C-alpha cells in the first residue's frame, strides 16, 4: 500500500468519525423514541412502540408551548423583516463617516450573548412600564410581547446580513431609469426594489421564524409567566423525562429533512433558471454583435 492510499484511508476515517459524532447522538435520541422503556434510552431494548408519539399530544404543556412559539415566530417575522430591510437600505445611504459606527451597532446583537439581550430587554421594558405607570396586564409586562422584541433585536441583524448580500447585486441604474421615466420614489420602491429583493425577503422570513422557534437563551428571561416550546422542553428534561421528548425530536428531524430536501430542489431549479437566463443573454449579445458587424459590411 502506497503512502498516498494510507493517507486517503486516514482522511476518510476521520471524516467518518466526525460525522459519526455529528449524527450519533441524534440517532440514539431518535431510536429511544421507539423504545417501550419509559425512560428515554436505547439499551436495554424493550420492544418497538409508537406510544410516545401519542403521549406527545396529551402533553398539554408542550402543546401550549408549541402554539406560543408559533405566534412568537410570526411576531418576530412581522417585526424583524421590515426593520432589517430598512437597516440594510440605510447602510448604503448613511454618511460615510458614520458607517463604521452604524455597522458595529447593528451587528453587535449577533455577537452579544443571548442571555444579555434577554435581560436588557426585560429590565428596560420593566422600567418603561414603571415610568408609564402601566397595569400589570399591560404590554410592558407581557411575556409574549417582550419575547418578540428581545428575539427581534438579534434576529433583525441576521436578516439584515441577508438583505445586504442581495443588495450588493442590485443595479442602481434600474432605479434611476424608472425615476427618469417619471416614477415616484414610492413606486420605485414597490415596483423595482421589492421585487428584486423578494427572494431575500422570503429567506429572511424563514430564517427569522426558525431562529425564533428554537431560541432559548433570550426567551427564558423575557417570557416570564408564559411558556414556549423551548422553555417547556428544558423544564421537562431537567425534571427527568419520558421518551415523548424523543418523539418530538423525531418529528422535528423529519420536518427538517423534508424542508432541507425541498430547499435543495428549489435551489437547483433556480440555479438552472439563472443559467438559462445567462445563456439567453449571451446569445442575444452575440446576435447584437453580429448585427453590428454585419451593418458596415452591408453598407459597403
Amino acid at each position, binding site marked *: 500500500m502506497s503512502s498516498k492510499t494510507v493517507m486517503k484511508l486516514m*482522511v476518510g476515517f*476521520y*471524516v467518518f468519525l*466526525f460525522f459519526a459524532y455529528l*449524527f450519533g*447522538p*441524534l440517532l*440514539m*435520541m431518535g431510536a*429511544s423514541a421507539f423504545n417501550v422503556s419509559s*425512560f428515554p*434510552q436505547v*439499551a436495554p431494548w424493550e420492544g418497538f412502540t409508537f406510544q410516545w408519539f401519542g403521549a406527545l399530544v396529551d402533553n398539554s404543556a408542550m402543546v401550549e408551548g408549541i402554539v406560543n412559539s408559533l405566534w412568537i415566530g410570526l411576531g418576530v417575522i412581522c417585526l424583524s423583516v421590515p*426593520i432589517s430591510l*430598512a*437597516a440594510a*437600505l*440605510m447602510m448604503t*445611504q448613511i454618511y460615510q463617516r458614520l458607517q463604521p459606527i452604524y455597522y*458595529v451597532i*447593528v*451587528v453587535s446583537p*449577533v*455577537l*452579544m*450573548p*443571548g*442571555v*444579555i*439581550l434577554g*435581560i*436588557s*430587554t426585560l*429590565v*428596560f421594558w420593566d422600567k418603561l412600564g*414603571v415610568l408609564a*405607570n402601566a397595569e400589570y396586564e399591560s404590554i410592558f409586562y407581557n411575556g409574549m410581547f417582550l419575547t418578540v422584541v428581545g428575539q427581534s*433585536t438579534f434576529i*433583525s441583524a441576521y436578516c439584515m446580513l441577508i438583505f445586504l448580500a442581495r443588495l450588493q447585486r442590485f443595479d442602481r441604474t434600474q432605479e434611476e431609469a424608472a425615476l427618469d421615466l417619471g416614477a415616484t*420614489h*414610492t413606486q420605485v*420602491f414597490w415596483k423595482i426594489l421589492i421585487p428584486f429583493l423578494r427572494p431575500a425577503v422570503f429567506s429572511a422570513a424563514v430564517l427569522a421564524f426558525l431562529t425564533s422557534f*428554537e431560541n*432559548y*437563551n433570550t426567551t427564558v*428571561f423575557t417570557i416570564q409567566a408564559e411558556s414556549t416550546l*423551548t422553555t417547556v*422542553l*428544558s423544564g421537562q*428534561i*431537567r425534571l427527568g*423525562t419520558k421518551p415523548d*421528548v424523543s418523539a418530538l*425530536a423525531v418529528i*422535528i*428531524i423529519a420536518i*427538517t*429533512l423534508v*424542508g*432541507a430536501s425541498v430547499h435543495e430542489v428549489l435551489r437547483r431549479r433556480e440555479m438552472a433558471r439563472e443559467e438559462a437566463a445567462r445563456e439567453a443573454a449571451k446569445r442575444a449579445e452575440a446576435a447584437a454583435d453580429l448585427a453590428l458587424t454585419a451593418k458596415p459590411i452591408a453598407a459597403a
Partner: protein
Amino acid sequence: MSEFIGIFLAVLLAILIAPHAQKHADRIWAAVTRINFVQRNGVFISTYLIVAVVTWTVVMIILPQLYMVDFSFRFNLLPADIGGPKDTYTLEQYRYLLFGRAGDEDAMNWLHLQVFGRTILVSVLVTLFDFAICYPIAYYMAQVAKGGQARLLVLCLILPFWVNEILRAFAFKILFGTGGVTNVVLIWLGILDEPFDFLKADVGLYAGLSYAYILLMIFPLFNAIESLDHNQVEAARDLGAPWWRIHFRVVMPHAKPGIASGCTMVFMLCAGALAAPQILGGPSSLWFTQIIYQWFNTGGNWPRGSAYAFVLLLVCIVFVMAVMRIFKVRFGEIAK
C-alpha cells in the same frame, strides 16, 4: 399628578407651536423635501427607513443595554422605594461577586468566582477543541472534495443544527446517562465494570458544548479556506514544503479572518450558553449564566443579575478585542 402636568404641558406646547407651524408649513415642507436623503427616497420611504432604523438601534439595542448597565449599579429595592431617597448608585452588586455577603467567613466569594473562572476556562478549551477538530474537515471540504461531494457534506453538516439546542443537549443526556449507550458499550468492551456517571463528571457537558457550536466554527473556516487558490498549495508542495508547513505558512495565514470569526463565535456562544449546562451539568457544576438566571428567578435580585450579566458582557468584549488584536483583523471581518 405628574401625568396631568405632562399632558397640560403637551397641550400648551401644541397650542403655542401649531399656528406658527401652520404659517410656515410650506416652508418647513420645502426644507424637508430638500434634504438629500428625502429627495433620494421620497417622503414615505424616508419616514419608514428612519422610524424602523431608530426603533431598532435606539429602542431595541442601545437604550436597553445602557439601562441594564445603569440598573446594575443600583440597590435591589421594592417597587415603592424606586425613585425615592434610597434609590442611589452603588457598587454593592459588583462587590458581592468579588467578596460575597458581608460577614461571611471567607474573604472572597469563592463559589461564584470559581464558577466564573471555570466558565471562561472551559469556553476557551472548547473553542480550541472545536478548532482542532473542524479545521481538517473544513480544509477537506474546501480544497479536496469535488463539487457534488462538497455540497452533500455541507448539507450533512447543516442538518443536525436545525434540531434545537435543547434537544441536542437532551441527546447527549441519553448518550451519557448511567443507562446510556456509552456506558453499555464500555462495559461490553470490558473497559468499565459498572456504569460511570459521565454527567456528574461533566464529561457530558463538555462534549455537548463542543458539539453545539461546531457549525459556527466550520463555516467561517470553510468560507475562508475555499477562497484560497489551490495552486498556492501545489506551489508550496512543489517547492518541497512538508504538509504541516503548508498549513502553517500558506493555508492558515490566508484563513485568518475565518479562524478569528469562528473562534469568537464559539467562545461567545459557549460562555453565554444556558441550556446545555442546565440540562447536562452535574448537580454540583454551575455555569456563570446559571447564576445570572438564578438571580432573576429564585434569587429575585435583578440588579445583581444585571451586574453579573454585565461582567459576562465585558469578558466577551475583551475576548473580541483580543482576537482582533492577535489576528490583526477588523470587526467587520469577524461579524460576517
